[in-house]
C-alpha cells in the first residue's frame, strides 16, 4: 500500500481497502524504521493520528473531503505549522512554535491530509545537499536500494557501505527522501534556485516548482522572496497535479499571488505530441555535465522527435550570467530577510545582556551557521549605498535579460524546454563535502536557477537509472502560468520512460508486514 501513488491510495481509501488510521500507522512505523535517513526533523505522530481518526470518521459517514483526505503528507521545516515546531534546521529557530499555519499547509489540512512531520533541509534552505542543517545531513534512500547495493557489490568489495551513503540534494532533501522512502505520499518543499527539483532528481521522485505567484508563500519562511515558490514532491506527475490543484490560487495574505481563480484540474493523457515544440537550450550543454546525463537528455529529445514532436535547439544567451546574478540578488534578500532574527520577539536569544547591540551580535553569531552568516555579510555589502548600483541594480538588469531570454524562446513557438535537472547523479556525502556550500550551490543550481529568476514553472521527472543504478531526472520548463500544459507533457514523458521503482526491501526486511497482502499494480517492492 505504501508503495502506491497518491492517486492509487486515495482510490483505495475511498473503496475502503485501507483506513486512514491504518495508513497513518504504517507510515509512522516506516518513518521510525528509516529514522537513520534523517529525513524528518519533527515527526508529528499525535497530530497525524488524530487527523487520521477524524478522516476515518468522515469516510465512515461518506463525507470524504476529496483526493487528499486521509493521505499522509510531509512538510519541509521552513513552512510555518501552528503548534508544531518550525526550525529551518537552524539554532536560531530551534524551539520556535509558530502560532499559525502557512497557507499551503492550511490548504492541505483543509483537504483532510495527515501531517506526518516536518522534513529536514539545509539551514534556512541555503544549500544544495541537505547537508548543512543543525540536525545533520539527510541520507538518500537510494544509498540503500537493492539496485545500488548490488551494483556496488559488483564493483568494490569490503568498502564500508554505511559511510558511503549518498546525499539527497537540496535544500528540500528531507521531503524528497520522505517521498522516495514511502513514508508519505506527497511532500512540500520550497524552490528558490532548484531546491525542490534538485533533490527530486537525486531521489528519483517528481519535483514541481510552480509558476511564481500561483501558490501562496504566506507562512513559508523566506530565502529570496522574489524567487521562492512552494514546491511539490510526489511519486508521479499526476500526484503533483493533484496537489498543485489544491494549493494553487490567490491568497489575500500574499499580494504576489495571481488574482484569477484557479480550478482543480485533472491532467489529460496526451497521446499525440506531434503538435508540440520542444526546445533544447544549447547553453545548457556545459562541459561539467556528466556524459550519462547528457546521453539521457539527448535520448529524451529523440523520444519526443520520434513521436512526431518538433524538437529544436534554442538559445538562452544570458544563462552563463545567471549564477553570479543569483548570488547578488539572493544574498541581498537574505541579508534583509534575516534581519528580523534578533533574539527579541522569538527564536534563539543569547545570554549576553551587556547591551542590546551585544545581544544582537551574540544571538546572531550563535543562531546562524557559517553559510547563513556569509550570505548576510555579502548581501549587506551589495546593498551598501556605494555598491548598490554596481551590484544589486546590475544584477536586477541581468535578471530581466535572463527572464527575457525565456520569453523570446517561448514567443518563437516553443511550448516546453527540455533540460537536465542536475549535472550528474547523487554523489556520496564524503565527496560532496569536499567543496564548500557556496561552490556546491553554484554548481548544482546551474540548470534550475534561471527558472526562478524568470518565475516560470518547471518540473523534474525521473527518467532512468545511471550505470551506478542511481536516478537521473530531466527538467521540463513551461511558460509562465502554463503549469498544467507543462505537467501534461511531463506526464506523457513519465509514461514513456517507465522509471524503475526504488527497491528498499533490504532496508525494510523486518517490516515486511507493512507490505504484505498487497497487490501492487504499479510498484514492485520485491
Amino acid at each position, binding site marked *: 500500500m505504501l508503495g502506491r501513488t497518491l492517486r492509487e491510495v486515495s482510490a483505495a481509501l475511498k473503496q475502503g481497502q485501507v483506513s486512514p488510521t491504518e495508513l497513518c500507522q504504517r507510515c509512522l512505523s516506516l518513518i521510525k524504521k528509516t529514522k537513520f535517513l534523517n529525513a524528518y526533523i519533527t515527526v508529528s505522530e499525535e497530530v497525524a493520528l488524530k487527523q487520521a481518526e477524524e478522516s476515518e470518521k468522515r469516510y465512515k459517514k461518506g463525507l470524504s473531503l476529496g483526493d487528499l483526505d486521509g493521505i499522509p503528507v510531509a512538510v519541509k521545516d521552513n513552512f510555518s505549522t501552528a503548534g508544531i515546531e518550525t526550525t529551518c534546521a537552524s539554532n536560531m529557530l530551534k524551539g520556535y512554535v509558530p502560532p499559525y499555519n502557512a497557507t499551503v499547509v492550511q490548504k492541505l489540512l483543509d483537504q483532510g491530509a495527515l501531517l506526518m512531520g516536518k522534513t529536514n533541509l539545509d539551514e534556512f534552505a541555503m544549500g544544495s545537499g541537505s547537508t548543512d542543517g543543525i540536525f545533520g545531513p539527510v541520507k538518500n534512500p537510494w544509498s540503500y536500494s537493492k539496485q545500488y547495493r548490488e551494483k556496488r557489490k559488483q564493483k568494490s568489495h569490503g568498502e564500508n557501505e554505511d559511510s558511503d551513503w549518498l546525499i539527497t540534494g537540496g535544500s528540500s532533501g528531507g521531503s524528497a527522501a520522505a517521498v522516495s522512502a514511502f513514508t508519505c505520499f506527497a511532500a512540500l518543499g520550497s524552490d528558490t534556485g532548484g531546491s525542490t527539483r534538485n533533490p527530486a532528481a537525486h531521489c528519483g521522485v517528481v519535483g514541481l516548482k510552480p509558476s511564481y505567484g500561483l501558490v501562496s508563500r504566506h507562512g513559508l519562511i523566506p530565502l529570496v522572496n522574489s524567487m521562492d515558490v512552494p514546491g511539490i514532491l510526489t511519486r508521479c506527475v499526476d500526484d503533483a497535479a493533484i496537489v498543485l490543484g489544491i494549493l494553487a490560487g490567490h491568497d489575500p495574505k500574499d499580494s*504576489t499571488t495571481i488574482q484569477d481563480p484557479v480550478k482543480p484540474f485533472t491532467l489529460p493523457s496526451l497521446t499525440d505530441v506531434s503538435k508540440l515544440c520542444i526546445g533544447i537550450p544549447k547553453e545548457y550543454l556545459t562541459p561539467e555535465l556528466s556524459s550519462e546525463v547528457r546521453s539521457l537528455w539527448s535520448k529524451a529529445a529523440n523520444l519526443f522527435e520520434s513521436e512526431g514532436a518538433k524538437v529544436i535547439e534554442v538559445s538562452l544567451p544570458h544563462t552563463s550570467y545567471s549564477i553570479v546574478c543569483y548570488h547578488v540578488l539572493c544574498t541581498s534578500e537574505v541579508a534583509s530577510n534575516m534581519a528580523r532574527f534578533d533574539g527579541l520577539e522569538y527564536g534563539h536569544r543569547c545570554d549576553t545582556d551587556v547591551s542590546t547591540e551585544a545581544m544582537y551580535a551574540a544571538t546572531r553569531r550563535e543562531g546562524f551557521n557559517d553559510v547563513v552568516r556569509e550570505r548576510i555579510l555579502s548581501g549587506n555589502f551589495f546593498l551598501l549605498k556605494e555598491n548598490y548600483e554596481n551590484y544589486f541594480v546590475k544584477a536586477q538588469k541581468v535578471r530581466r535579460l535572463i527572464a527575457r531570454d525565456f520569453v523570446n524562446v517561448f514567443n518563437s513557438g516553443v511550448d516546453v524546454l527540455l533540460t537536465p535537472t542536475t549535472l550528474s547523479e547523487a554523489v556520496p556525502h564524503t565527496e560532496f563535502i569536499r567543496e564548500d556550500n557556496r561552490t556546491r550551490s553554484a554548481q548544482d543550481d546551474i540548470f534550475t536557477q534561471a527558472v526562478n529568476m524568470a518565475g516560470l514553472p518547471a518540473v523534474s521527472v525521473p527518467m532512468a537509472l545511471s550505470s551506478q543504478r542511481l536516478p537521473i531526472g530531466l527538467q521540463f520548463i513551461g511558460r509562465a502560468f502554463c503549469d498544467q500544459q507543462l505537467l501534461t507533457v511531463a506526464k506523457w514523458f513519465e509514461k514513456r520512460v517507465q522509471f524503475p521503482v526504488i527497491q528498499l526491501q533490504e532496508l525494510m526486511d523486518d517490516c515486511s508486514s507493512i507490505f504484505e497482502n498487497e497487490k501492487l499494480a504499479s510498484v514492485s517492492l520485491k
Partner: protein
Amino acid sequence: MATPMLRWCCPGRRWIFAGIGGGSRHGRGVPTGSTSSGKKGQSSVAQQPLITAQKPRKGEREWAAVVGLEIHAQIASNSKLFSGSQVDFAAPPNSLVSFFDASLPGTLPVLNRRCVEAAVMTGLALDCHINRKSLFDRKHYFYADLPAGYQITQQRLPIAVNGSLAYSVCVGKRWSQMVTRTVGVKQIQLEQDSGKSLHDNLRSQTLIDLNRAGVGLLEVVLEPDMSCGEEAAAAVRELQLILQALGTSQANMAEGQLRVDANISVHHPGEPLGVRTEVKNLNSARFLAKAIDYEIQRQISELENGGKILNETRSFDYKLGCTVPMRDKEGKQDYRFMPEPNLPPLLLYDSGSLPTGADPQQVIDIDQLRERLPELPRVTREKLVRQYGMLPEHSFALLNEVGLLEFFQNVIKETRAEPKKVTSWVLNTFLGFLKQQNLAVSESPVTPSALAELLDLLDRKAISSSAAKQVTDVKKGNPRAINKLIGLVRRATLGRADPTVIKEVLERQLSS
C-alpha cells in the same frame, strides 16, 4: 523665492546662552547693533531682511539659513498599513499586534486601501503629481522597536511628488501684516511607523510596545524653501489643518500623530549651501520654531568661530532650549535600501485609465478621490473673508482653534447681529474666556445659541455691551458680576423691583 537673510552683526563674539530656563526665548540676545528693535527674536529678523543703510563692517558678512522639513503624519485609519491590527492610541501595550507586526517569519505585508486613499487625498490637497505607479522599499536598521529589522517605505518612487503648500506668516508685530509664502512639497510617501521603546533606567531594561509598529505614516517632505523657525512652524500648522480637514490624519502633535524632523544649514548668500544638520523628533510647533532658530544661530556661531558643521543628527532638549547631537540609531548609517519584494508596484488609475471590469475594491480611482476632497482651510478662510467681510487674520484665528469655526457659524445662523460683531465677540470675548479657563471649544459652558441670544439683545439695544460682557462674566463664574446686573435692572425699573427677586430671576436666567 528669495531667501531672507540672517544678519550677524557681531563677528567674533560668541552667543551667550543666558537664562536657560524653559520660558525664555532661546535665552539668546539680540545681536548688538541690530536695528530690529521690538522684534522678539531671530525668526522675525529672518522674515524681514534688515537692509540697513550702513555697510557691513570689515569681515562682517551676511548669513542665509535654509530649512527643509520631513513631517511624519500618522494616517487616521482603523487598521495598520500592512496588517489587519487595529490602530488605537490608548490601547494597553502590545494588545494590537498581528503576527506580521511582530515580524513572525513567513508573514507578508498586505497594503491597506484606506492608507493609500489618504496618501492620494493628501497629495491632491497639496497640488502634487500623483504617481500612477509607486514602489515600496525596505530601509534597514537594527532597533528594538523595529521587529523586522527594516521599515517598509517608498524611497525610490513615492506615491506623490512635486506639490506645494501655501502658508501665511506675519511679518510685523501686528497680525494684519500677514504674507503668504509657498513651500515646495518634494514628495509624499507611505511608510510604516515603528513600535515604542520605553527605557526603564532604574532596572536598566527596555520595554517594547508594538501597538504602534506598522501604523501607516505619510511622510511629507518639504523642500528647503524656509529660512527660520517661524516659517517652518507656520507651514507645519497649515499642513496640520489640511490633514485634519481631509481627515487623513488627526495630526495631533502632542499625541505623536504629527512628528517633524528639520534639516538646517546656513551659508553666505551667493555661495553654495552649507553642511546641514538634522534635528529630529520635534513634537510641538513651539519647540519646532525654537529648535530651528537655535540651530541656525548655533551653526552661524560655530562657523564664525572658525568651526565646522558636521553632517549629523541632533535632538532638541526642550528643557535646556538647545539642540544636542544624537548618538545611537539616529546617527549616520547606511540603510541598505532594497525593493520590497513582497509588494507589487502600487498602481493607481484615473477615470480615463480605469481598467474595464476591474473590481472596484481592487483599484483606486484618483479622479473619484478628487471629487470627494473636502473644502481646504485656505478656501474656507477666503470664503469667510468674502462672506463676512472679515479680516484675513480673523479667518486664520477662527480656523486655528478646533471647533471654533463651527461655533462661529452656529452663532451667525441664529443671530441678527452683524458678522463683524459676531467675529469680534467670538474671537475676543468668547475665545479670551476659553483661554482664561483653559477650555476647549467643545467644553465651553456658553452654547452658540446663548451667545446668539445675547448678541441679539445687544443688537436691539435691549442691553448695553457692558451688560452683555457682564453676562458672560457671570457665565465665566464671576458671581460678583451679578451685582452689576442687579444694578442695571433696578435702574431700568426705576428702583421699583425688589433686588432679591431680581437676583433670583437673573440667576435662573443665567444658569439656564
